[in-house]
């Protein structure tokens, strides 16, 4: 029952804009604003993952996500490839843990 209700509230958030905005010309400021939404949402999701652990700042040598995340991001910038940094990031972290560096 909860699951049906959850589906009922998530579906409209994805469907309504596609339904209503399709085929309309939007004002210029809105189009500019929309252009920045992808990078903003990705940054807003990933920054807390990198800098916080359990809601507290952890900016030191034990923060494995931060120290693996920076080269992962750099690899993405350098290669302009999506697949490579994802695999390299996970493999890199697995290796560092295997050799108990973290």
């Amino acid at each position, binding site marked *: *029952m*909860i*699951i*049906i*209700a*959850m*589906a009922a*509230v*998530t*579906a409209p*958030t*994805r469907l*309504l*804009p*596609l*339904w209503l*905005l*399709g085929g*309309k010309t939007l004002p210029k*400021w809105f189009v*500019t*604003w*929309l252009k920045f*939404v*992808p*990078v*903003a*949402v*990705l*940054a*807003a*999701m*990933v*920054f*807390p*993952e990198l*800098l*916080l652990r359990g*809601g*507290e700042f952890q900016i030191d040598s034990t923060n494995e*996500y931060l120290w693996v995340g920076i080269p*992962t*991001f750099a*690899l*993405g*910038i350098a290669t*302009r490839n*999506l*697949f*490579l*940094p*994802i695999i*390299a*990031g*996970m493999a*890199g*972290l*697995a290796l560092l*843990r*295997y050799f108990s560096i973290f």
Partner: protein
Amino acid sequence: MLNRAVNGDGALAGILYAAPIVTAFLPLSFAFGLSARESGLTFLQTFLMSLLVYAGSSQMVAVSLIASGEAAWMIVVTTFIVNSRMLLLSAAIAPSLDRWKIRERLAFGYLLTDESFALLMTRFRTHAPSAEFALAVNAASHLAWATGTALGHLFSGLIPDVKPFGLDFALVSMLLALLALQLREWTMVWVVLFSGILAVWGVHAGLGSQAILVATLLGPLLGTAIEFQKARRCRTERS
């Protein structure tokens, strides 16, 4: 013949293009399946949630709320808040799809995720938005999510910890890779720093997903202001 199917705008090309999402979704949904079982959800409940709700962060939050015996309406409201950023993403991708049939747009929207959004926005910069291609990307991602969830619930006894394999890093590395791919002008760097720091500050203050939503709303506002300022300076320099 095969070469054309792989490089073209069709369903097969879409499925292959979804490979990065599939790679990240399998371990993520596996982890979700594990934690759902630990929280006492049955296989059917867990699987249906991945099939119908299909929203990673909302599902994770919902499972932990169900485990702690939270009221049903609280869970539904939280699901909505966590997932409300999809309103923005859906609105942002809508202009690219204005030639699609309405049923194609709705079928696409139902399976839209942060990841398929970012992947397809990148794709549509250089390619015409093909409905068949985009729907295939979404379908492959959804299938991966449902499969991973099922496997996670079924085999939760076999793998006690995903950490030795680095699988817990799947989401973060995917977000970073998508961000790297999206960055293509200096204004965006300012938006990233602004939204990122705002979100960190908000999450640290205990605002959770609301902080992420606010950062997603305000960051692009800064970008728009910078861009309009630049345009005005260009005009005054010319005159």
